[in-house]
């Protein structure tokens, strides 16, 4: 699932039988507040989760790159670390990593840790900077946005949902997509006003000679 949420085209793929959305949303509400503390080393957390998922030990290069992303100057505005921490929290839940759809998706991603790293990477790209940190756990819509992003990035459909439904609901809660829609509509509204002015101008009303009748 490599589509960005601001893509105007819709994704219709994903393995069925993913984790229940309610389980994800509920778990987010229970996320430990420590995850938002700057002192927490989220890259170390990622390494721990990888080991616990399928025994994978992440090599030093991967971890250094992750560290640079999550703690470096580039992260000042985007606040990637809390998001990645929340992904770790979600994936550790057996209801998530044990879902049948996740097993199928992980098989196509080189194992559960490969699947997990894909979400870690995607969530930074797709959600970073979209909302204040704590909103991801405190706000109902934000929790659903993060839960759906995890499913979408992990290539699974929430349990019991069809691809079309999942897609519709994702676009309804995606901050980036909704912002893009709002910008798109603002451009269209401004253009409609420009057109009305242009058509009302006397030079438009003078028109051009016509050769045939319709």
């Amino acid at each position, binding site marked *: 699932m490599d589509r960005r949420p601001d893509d105007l085209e819709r994704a219709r793929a994903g393995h069925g039988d993913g984790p229940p959305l309610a389980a994800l949303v509920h778990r987010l509400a229970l996320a430990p507040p420590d995850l938002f503390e700057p002192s927490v080393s989220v890259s170390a957390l990622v390494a721990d989760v990888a080991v616990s998922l399928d025994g994978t030990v992440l090599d030093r290069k991967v971890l250094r790159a992750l560290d640079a992303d999550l703690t470096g100057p580039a992260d000042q505005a985007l606040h990637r670390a809390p998001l990645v921490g929340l992904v770790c929290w979600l994936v550790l839940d057996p209801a998530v990593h044990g879902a049948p759809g996740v097993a199928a998706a992980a098989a196509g991603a080189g194992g559960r840790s490969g699947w997990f790293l894909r979400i870690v990477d995607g969530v930074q790209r797709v959600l970073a900077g979209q909302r204040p940190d704590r909103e991801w756990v405190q706000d109902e819509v934000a929790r659903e946005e993060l839960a759906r992003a995890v499913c979408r990035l992990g290539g699974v459909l929430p349990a019991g949902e069809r691809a079309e439904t999942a897609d519709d609901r994702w676009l309804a809660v995606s901050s980036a997509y909704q912002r893009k829609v709002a910008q798109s509509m603002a451009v269209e509204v401004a253009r409609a006003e420009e057109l009305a002015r242009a058509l009302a101008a006397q030079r438009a009303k003078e028109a051009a000679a016509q050769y045939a*009748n319709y």
Partner: protein
Amino acid sequence: MRTTEESTPVPDPALGEYAAMGSVALTDTERWPTLDADGLARVDAWRARPDAPVWVHATGDRLETADLAVLEQVARLRQEPTEPAWVAELVARVHATVPRWRRAAREGRSGPTTPLGDLPTTSRADLADVAAHVPLDVPLDRVLEGSSSGHTGAALNVPLHPVSVAADLVLLQHLVASAGADWRADPARLGLVNLVDQRASFTYVSAMTAFGRPAGSPAPVMARVNLNRSVWRADGDRERYLTAADPQVISTSTLPLLRLLDLARDGLDLHPVAVVNGATDLPPAVRDAVRATWGCPVIDLYGLRETGPIAASIDGDGHVVVPRRVWVEVLDDQGRPVPDGHRGEVVVTVDENPYLPLLRYRTGDTAALVRDHRGTVLVGLEGRAPVRFLAADGSWHSSIDATQVLQAYGLAGWELLQDAHGTVRLTALPLAGVPVDPTAAGDAIGRWLDRPVRVDVVTDPSAFGTGKPRRFRSDAALGQEDR
């Protein structure tokens, strides 16, 4: 130029825009950017004749040098028998640039790769929100206001581009040549007259700079002329002006054409190389009368203001789709394609006017589609009948006059019916949120026909049914022998 010193009064107080020169904005050099002093002098000569009518308007073709090169390409277009590649390209383009299709993409209803046949159709009612159909990426600095008034109901405000308007002339040259007529610029005559017969109409003289001709030869001049007696200064001026102009091509619609044939019977001596009919059905009897009177071909051009030309009939045997970027489907009531040879609604996809590319636009007209050696042909085209109303004094009046009046009073829709006894009933739909007095519109119709008018006001557009509105009907001819 003789324009404002003698003005004719407008026929109704609401038609102020038709006051002589009430809508001009440009200089002549802005009207014809490529025309030299000699060319402008030729235009002025046709404006200033002592027998010229009181010109209501001044307008040019607005064509720049680069446009003329584009129009030369238009002349080389050919009609294709299967869905041309530009259709899929247009579908992709509008999903990125046209608000209506961007919205469909956002909502997942269609996208840049959706096949044309899977897209919903577009109706005339959809175009009431015209901005939703204008691409975001086309500069608006050349937009022209094109109003689609005429025989059928409420006006649409169609944004036009000078090049797509002038492309009509390129097409007419092609069609006239196809009909076997010889249309070469003759400086002694008007190259074309666009003829109307209405109480109020924009009339003007213009140079046809897009007219294909040998390099160095001057652009022929055309005029839009109103046959209505009220716009001429003196008895006989109309006949004198037209005789002097002896227009090479007469482009008009059925009712003015009938009027011109009457004038020809009364001695008006014209020698057109071709007659072009548009906007209304051309009954075979009228086609025959033109042949008998002037011995020239008659081209019946079918199109809509919002789409531009769609098809043309040179021989009266079906309308052949024109060599433009227009793709025609024929669909049933449910929007499904009907087999070739079966009647259905004519639906067009067109990419000619940069301000209004249209996907699957429902014309409201019906025909059967056949493909033969001439190309794609619409057989039995129906739906453009002119309507005439009977005034108390026994004279007949075209529904175009009524359209102008009803639009001027701000009605969004209407049905104007006259029964066999001459009784007139107006069903009026005022525009929502706009202070409109339907009774005043009824009074204006009453003055027009010198008859009492019963006015019923409705608030729901669906009261008129769907599709292209058919808003005039007169059974008065049933109750009285036609003239």
